[in-house]
């Protein structure tokens, strides 16, 4: 049986949950700011107002909630907020205005591939998934792009344009990094 002292777990006043979000450290207290079952997506959207990420399925099937954790793409609806303790989260709001991946998605109009977005609901998730892919593999082949982004759903169906945008982002920069 755990003793009284062992109840002083992470998230109490003495040991808050610390998550760096878009470069800024945030402190949360368990029970006050979030619960053990609070998902990262809920914390980011509903509590902190980072509405770029979307919750479309809330069960890890569509990728609309993708954010970067320590530079790797993660599904924020499948991560508990407490799991982000000590990690660095980047949402689409944390990307610079002239981010090459954002720009490639916005600019795509190369004939034969359509645009890289229509309704735009899945787009932030795709952009962050593409960032994660390019961090791991700065020069992906078309097949690697297909595989790398196959966890995201675009019901408007702009997959051709998205693949093209990611290819362009990888060509114009060092793997989408500035």
């Amino acid at each position, binding site marked *: 049986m755990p003793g009284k002292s062992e109840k002083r777990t992470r998230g109490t006043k003495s040991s808050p949950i610390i998550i760096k979000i878009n470069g800024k450290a945030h402190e949360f207290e368990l029970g006050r700011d979030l619960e053990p079952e609070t998902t990262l997506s809920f914390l980011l959207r*509903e509590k902190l107002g980072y509405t770029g990420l979307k919750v479309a399925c809330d069960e890890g099937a569509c990728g609309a909630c993708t954010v970067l954790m320590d530079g790797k793409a993660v599904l924020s609806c499948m991560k508990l907020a407490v799991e982000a303790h000590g990690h660095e989260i980047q949402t689409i709001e944390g990307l610079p205005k002239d981010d090459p991946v954002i720009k490639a998605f916005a600019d795509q109009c*190369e004939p034969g591939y359509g645009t*890289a977005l229509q309704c735009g609901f899945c787009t932030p998730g795709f952009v962050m998934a593409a960032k994660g892919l390019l961090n791991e593999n700065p020069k992906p082949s078309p097949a690697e792009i297909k595989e790398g982004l196959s966890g995201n759903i675009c019901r408007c169906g702009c997959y051709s344009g998205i693949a093209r945008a990611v290819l362009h982002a990888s060509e114009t920069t060092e793997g989408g990094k500035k």
Partner: protein
Amino acid sequence: MTPPRPYTPRTARKFIGAYRPRIDAMEKASGKVQFVDDITLKSRFPGMLYAKVMRSPYAHARIKSIDASLAEKLPGVKAVLTCKDPEVSSLKPTSAGWTDGVDTVSYERMMWRHFRDRRVLGDHACWATDEVGAVVAAETEQIAEEALKLIKVEWEVLPFVLDPLEAMKPGAPVIHPEISPNNILPKDPVGGADIFVDKGDVDIGFAGSEVVVEATSVHHNATQASLDNWCCLVDWKEDKLTVMSNSYEADQSRMHISQMLNLPINKVRVISSYVGGQFGRGDTGDQPFFLFTALLSRKSGRPVKFRHSRRESFHDSRQPAIYTGKIGARKDGTIISMYFKGIGNSGAYADHTMFAMKFAPTEITEVALAYIPNVRMETYGVYTNKLPACMMRGVGNSQFNLIFGHVVDMLAEKLKMDPVDLALKNFGHEWGGLPDKSLTAVLCEGAKRIGWKEKRHKPGKGPVHDRTKKRGVGFSFHPAWHAEWQEARRGEIRIRITVNPDCSVVLDAPTVETGTGSNTCNVLGCAEALGFLGITTDDIVWPHTVDTETSLKDCVQTDSAVSYLQSEVVARAALEVKQRLLEKASKLMKAAPEALDIAGGRVFRKAAPAKGLTVKDVFMKGDMLPVVVEMGRAPNSERTGVPYIANFAEVEVDTATGRVQVLKLVVLNDCGTVMYASGAEAQQIGGQVIGVGEALTEEIIYDQATGVPLNFNWIDYKIPTMADMPEIDPALLEVWRGAGEYGACGIGEGTVTCTPRAVLNAIYNAIGVRIDDIPVKPEKVLKALGKA
């Protein structure tokens, strides 16, 4: 990969038809666009409550008694309503099929007024997860869900039926006895008789035919699956009700709420902004949940938000249909008789069932079947305890194309004719001769791009790849249905152009932005029409929010026609803008307006073009008042016919596993005029996700023992991802021409229509065995091959 082949415009224009980014591309790519769920965060509406509705655990049941007293006492619960409360039970019976979206209609004039089978929060559950019984508003969604569990319900569980053929049999459970004693939707003045097309005499036609083929095709339950789940926030303060929602029809939503809740129209304010995908879901937004959310707001005195979870967003589907078709011809390929019979599975509520079952087939009859002397079509809509069905990127078109393209392909085989030749010999439209120019263009271009002559072989007799894989090609075609004359029912479409003193422009052309690209078409059309100002698209602002209190009536995103309808009005309004500017300038330049002209942003005397003023100077030296032109115009009803669309597919079937892989799709649309090339291609490519999904993987599965749907999630309901999609070659053509400045035609819905049938015909070409129902899952292929 074939290198892309950009289209060549028939008429060169400066802006219209461009390959360029969308006007909202940067805002969307950077995640700055705010959808209604984003706008209505609790941090922005501190007093906001969340609503949750009770859902039936049974496919068919009635609530005998309901006790919500424990729920009302749960801390955090602010309002509870049940089906027994008078403010709920006194609401009129309704339908979610008030209108097809083309026009705004009242309760009395709703399209399917004979099938008012829906109650707002009723006591009769007609499908498992039907929204019935009670609704709760609480401080959090979790508390609302907890409260629902505390409501005691005594259910009378009723027998259910899922299969429409079973539902039609005597003794089947009757779902809406007040409307139909046998589940078959009765005849109604809107849809017409059961035999709704009867041209010539099909029996004589078949008797005189030398070749006859007959087939069946079955279209199962697919769902729209917009990523943006249904969401609304309703704030009812004193006598004023404000709704923010992701319904795509603001004016109709206002009419619906006003008429159902007996509020003056000006006391209902509907605000719609960006919507994350529409695809026809919810028909036209006449959804009962707007009303119970409103009543919760009134009761609690607080803004109330209601949003569906993903599972709850499995709320509508494409009309499932079982079609049989029969076609008779002479040996030379002249078709003389066609007969189609459809059984539509309406699901729990009628909604737009008869629209799907009768509208699309009627339209194809007057267009593609104009030269067939004998045609009969017969259809029945049948209630079952499945998910209700409505529009989904078209209304009934995909379902009808599945049988139409089937019998055409079968007949061609029996006649030993190329189906391209058979199609060109028989199908045109009543406004033109045979062969039809538009059909010829889409079929010949498609055949060329897919490699029809080289790749097509005798069914199942092609080479084998990797020991077990066989390839095949197929196509299907359909007349489009979004020419200007087909939009006449919209009545006047109003827009407003404001030219400010610095020549910047505000274009009020309201429509809810659902992703279709019509916003970009509008701005291109405006820049084109105001070309004399010497402006670019960057000088034009298009307000993306529709607010029924401040906006003009929205032109509804249906029929994919907003891409050109508003631009047609803008083209005319621009002439008036020019006239007003000339009048302004005439005072300054001391010349009659007729003696002046404007080009490149300069006003000049026609007699001495070198001298003049900039338009900006005309404003700045004059009265500084903006030029505001508001104009309404009804669509041109000149009967210009419609163009054709087609889809060619190449597939590979693994005969060992039954897996079908689509290798390539060629999507062809005769657009009349391409309004915005990148957007049109995005629609052509994008539609294939729904088309391929419906053809191969997407289907709602029900537990036959309980009637409970089993896959209301995106893990088991399989939507194609990037890895599942083939190479897609979009082909934009300009052959047909409609009325008006542009003579364009909507294309978005039609991009989906021909995909399943093209894929199925290609599968037949690959393996030599026909599969009649979609989605074609591996087990169906193995069964067809006699391996399972």
